[in-house]
């Protein structure tokens, strides 16, 4: 839009149809036209994921940024990117926003305000790579440190020069974090500061990754196993060996910029298993195996530990209980997988028996570390009689049974009592060779009665108001299965069908172009599957032509007295691929979530990925020539299931269809059964041999008027059965990694879970090829 010449009225007077958007615009108090142009879209995105207080804080922050006097750019970047940042940090805006604002203020106050825009522009990409609020904090610290030490430090001048490297640093940050952990980034930055603080040009070269040493340091820091690179393997590990599908959340191992040493310890809480962002190889154990040891240990606690009331025990007693309990857990783990003992023992320190001087130092930790070693390592070699006695009692306690945390604690307390020394109370503690770094911090092992458990207060999710009036056809009513009473509720659900609104078809062509390489690969596969018009069938007793090769062979057999093969004819048939498919898309609100996990996270929403995947699939099916249709659905109570027609069987894959696909939007809930029935009634009217309903969804059936989760699930299962009876095969591709329980319930054997949503665009078409091979 060219705005330069015309007189632009103050955008404050802009008005929006939606009252919430209008209120938000007033709160923003912003006169910038480019902001006004995208504001509505941004607010919708924010409304979909923010609670009311979060939204207010977001708008207030935006208002401040709008008033920095740096034009529209920083504000645009903030408005558009911030919801992604919050989503990457597990939806937790609270600690993060004030910190980001503090960084912005610091830049504004110093001469570095030019860096604000690049900072905000790459923040979302950075957040997607880092995946946790703690890690993002570390990143902010690194940036502040860089700013403080490179601003105005040019020899002989006053502090009026902005940091030359800072904007470059922000621009490169996503790329750097693709290669380095925050620890590595911190060291890489440190090198640049130390060497080029006084050379503006070379500093720019360094931080923009132009100089040779910048690359060299980058390579040097790239050691160890990055969590982001092995995340899928760790997920598989948990699932395969331990049947656990808990979330993994990385934390930073970078030292604080204040120079304070940070030695975080793994732990777990209601958000998942927390592990470091990088592990070096060491002590003969690969970084990957160290991750596995950490996970196994935490899984063990989750299985076998019961939280104990901490209040009655002294800190020393608690420490002893933790050592003993950790050993009990590991003994049980090793019982399941004996090979783990090699990894545990390689990582477990082996304290020397006489390393601690009990005259001057508190030695309890040292004694416990020795006990710990001895409990796990039959070849420990210690000779101290009390220790040996407790090792024996420990194994006795676990002989043929799991024992319990309480029983183990009793043994630990007995050990403390029996070996007590006056010096245990000394402030100087012997630490050497007592830290067992694959063990978690045991916070879950303790309950404190005194301070009341702080219940996490979850804000209620906000929902969009029901949208515009539905136009179009009168509703079609469907029954719904009531699993509790084993009866149908007749005419229970109203399905409104409408043409999906249209957008810009060029969008879809752009998406297809983006996946050109993938399309090329698919094309090769398609050519293999694609029906050749005429297929030759050999070895026919009756056929249209004589197959000379075979006939001659038979004649020879005949002459030589052996039984000739009578199948000497061949015939042709035009290929029999007789498949019709309806692709049904779940368009519920959860599709607006961004894809975060994994190293290559593209940070797109699931909806965008679905758009790409569906475009590719449509293109592929079109190449094959199978008739197909596409529809989407979402629901807002049983009175309003919307079924959106995107492509009909008789429509071509052309701009009209692409335009509808381009306008795909997500909202509301997932009443699956009704949508399946409606889609099924179209399919069952088709005449193909094979009728396939391919459902793409990211969650289980749900709707806001149904509290009991099993109900819609039972209904969906029923719908799948009904369709099967009508000759329609239903297959579900689920994007919910935790879908196992319910997809099996609903779809029997016909489902697949996609663990890496980023790979949807390649998976969906190849799944279709596989299914119809």
């Amino acid at each position, binding site marked *: 839009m060219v705005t330069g010449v015309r007189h632009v009225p103050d955008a404050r007077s802009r008005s929006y149809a939606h009252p919430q958007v209008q209120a938000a615009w007033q709160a923003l108090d912003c006169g910038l036209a480019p902001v006004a142009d995208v504001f509505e879209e941004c607010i919708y995105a924010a409304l979909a994921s923010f609670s009311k207080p979060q939204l207010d804080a977001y708008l207030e922050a935006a208002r401040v940024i709008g008033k920095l006097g740096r034009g529209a750019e920083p504000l645009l970047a903030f408005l558009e990117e911030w919801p992604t940042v919050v989503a990457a940090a597990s939806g937790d805006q609270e600690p993060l926003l004030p910190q980001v604002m503090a960084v912005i203020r610091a830049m504004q106050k110093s001469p570095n305000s030019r860096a604000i825009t690049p900072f905000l522009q790459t923040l979302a990409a950075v957040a997607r790579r880092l995946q946790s609020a703690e890690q993002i904090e570390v990143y902010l610290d690194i940036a502040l440190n860089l700013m403080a030490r490179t601003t105005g430090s040019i020899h002989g001048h006053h502090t009026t020069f902005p940091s030359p490297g800072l904007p470059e640093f922000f621009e490169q940050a996503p790329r750097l974090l693709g290669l380095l952990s925050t620890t590595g980034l911190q060291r890489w930055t440190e090198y640049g500061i130390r060497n080029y603080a006084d050379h503006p040009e070379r500093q720019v070269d360094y931080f923009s990754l132009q100089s040779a040493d910048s690359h060299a340091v980058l390579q040097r820091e790239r050691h160890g196993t990055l969590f982001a690179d092995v995340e899928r393997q760790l997920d598989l590990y948990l699932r395969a060996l331990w049947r656990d599908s808990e979330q993994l959340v990385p934390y930073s191992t970078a030292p604080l910029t204040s120079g304070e040493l940070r030695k975080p310890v793994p732990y777990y809480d209601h958000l998942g298993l927390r592990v470091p962002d990088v592990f070096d190889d060491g002590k003969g154990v690969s970084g*990957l195996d160290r991750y*596995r040891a950490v996970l196994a240990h935490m899984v063990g606690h989750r299985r076998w530990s019961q939280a104990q009331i901490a209040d009655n025990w002294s800190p020393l007693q608690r420490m002893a209980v933790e050592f003993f309990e950790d050993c009990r857990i590991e003994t049980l783990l090793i019982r399941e997988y004996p090979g783990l003992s090699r990894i545990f023992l390689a990582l477990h320190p082996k304290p020397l028996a006489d390393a601690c001087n009990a005259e001057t130092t508190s030695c309890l930790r040292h004694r416990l570390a020795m006990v710990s070693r001895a409990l796990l390592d039959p070849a420990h070699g210690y000779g101290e009689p009390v220790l040996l006695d407790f090792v024996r009692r420990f194994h006795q306690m676990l002989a043929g049974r799991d024992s319990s945390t309480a029983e183990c604690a009793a043994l630990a307390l007995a050990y403390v009592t029996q070996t007590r020394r006056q010096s245990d109370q000394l402030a100087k503690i012997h630490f050497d060779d007592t830290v067992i770094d694959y063990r978690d911090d045991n916070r879950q092992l303790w309950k404190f009665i005194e301070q009341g458990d702080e219940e996490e207060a979850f804000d209620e999710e906000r929902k969009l108001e029901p949208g515009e009036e539905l136009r179009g056809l009168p509703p079609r009513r469907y029954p719904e299965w009531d699993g509790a009473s084993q009866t149908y509720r007749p005419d229970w659900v109203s399905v409104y069908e409408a043409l999906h609104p249209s957008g810009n078809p060029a969008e879809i062509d752009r998406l297809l172009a983006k996946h050109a390489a993938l399309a090329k690969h698919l094309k090769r596969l398609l050519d293999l599957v694609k029906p050749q018009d005429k297929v030759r069938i050999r070895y026919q007793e009756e056929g249209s032509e004589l197959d000379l090769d075979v006939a001659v062979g038979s004649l020879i057999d005949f002459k030589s007295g052996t039984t000739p093969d*009578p199948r000497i004819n061949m015939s042709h048939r035009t290929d029999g691929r007789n498949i019709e498919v309806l692709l049904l898309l779940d368009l519920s609100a959860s599709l607006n979530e961004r894809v975060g996990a994994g190293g290559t996270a593209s940070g797109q929403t699931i909806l965008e990925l679905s758009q790409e995947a569906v475009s590719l699939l449509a293109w592929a099916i079109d190449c094959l020539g199978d008739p197909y249709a596409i529809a989407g659905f979402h629901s807002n109570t049983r009175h309003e299931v919307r079924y959106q027609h995107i492509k009909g069987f008789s429509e071509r894959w052309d701009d009209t269809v692409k335009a509808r696909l381009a306008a795909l939007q997500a909202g509301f809930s997932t009443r699956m059964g009704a949508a399946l029935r409606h889609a099924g009634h179209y399919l069952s009217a088709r005449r193909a041999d094979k009728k396939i309903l391919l459902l793409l969804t990211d969650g289980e059936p749900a709707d806001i008027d149904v509290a009991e989760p099993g109900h819609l699930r039972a209904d969906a299962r029923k719908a799948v059965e009904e369709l099967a009876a009508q000759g329609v095969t239903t297959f579900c591709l689920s994007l919910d990694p935790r879908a196992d329980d319910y997809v099996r319930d609903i779809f029997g054997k016909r489902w697949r879970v996609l663990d890496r949503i980023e790979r949807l665009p390649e998976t969906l078409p190849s799944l279709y090829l596989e299914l119809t091979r």
Partner: protein
Amino acid sequence: MSNKEQFLVRAEPYYEAQGKEVALYEAAYHARLPVMVKGPTGCGKSRFVEYMAWKLGKPLITVACNEDMTASDLVGRYLLDASGTRWLDGPLTTAARIGAICYLDEIVEARQDTTVVIHPLTDHRRVLPLDKKGELIEAHADFQLVISYNPGYQSLMKDLKQSTKQRFTAFDFDYPEAALETQIVVQESGLDAGTAATLVRIAQTARNLKGHGLDEGISTRLIVYAATLIKRGVAPQDACRMAMVRPITDDADIRATLDHAVDASFA
């Protein structure tokens, strides 16, 4: 040629029952109901049928179905010979004549037009028309039809028609639970129970990944293979990789995970 003797299962096949399937099968046989045995690959379907044939003292004719199989391959065909042509019964016809249990293994592999020839044999008529020969065979009183079918196949194209499915009674098999599977491995390979239990555990780790990158887990058959290799002196880890991990996946992450499961399972 149609000699009943040669199709009898002479020695008792080793079979561990997973549940009530033996008694149920006997009941189905006595009523001459067609039977369908469903289950993942290598879980003991074929072994079960063989065992039942032995137990009932009936001949067993097994046909491994494949895509190229035509109806003539089941029913029979005319052959040329020096003196003209001669009819040769197919295995299904032979079974119907001599009163054998006819076991069509992996029936989904066969083309659908082939499958329909079994229809008249499976309803009350119990007849088999030989169109080319112009003969209608009444099935022998002892004849029974059994098919096996692996529903785990992901291809929707390879599925039985409802009209075929609904002619059979069915057993749903799965891999035996750990203790039983261990016992089977011990019996089949002669391996010691401890190592066998470890192999079963490794197979279970792979079965946990079904639907997450694996279409099928590690089968009982593959466990028996690994056990056999170990018994012959191959190092356990190598045997597991070769017989249990490599055959089932090309996905590098899954392979690495299962390799680790193998390492972790042996002390």
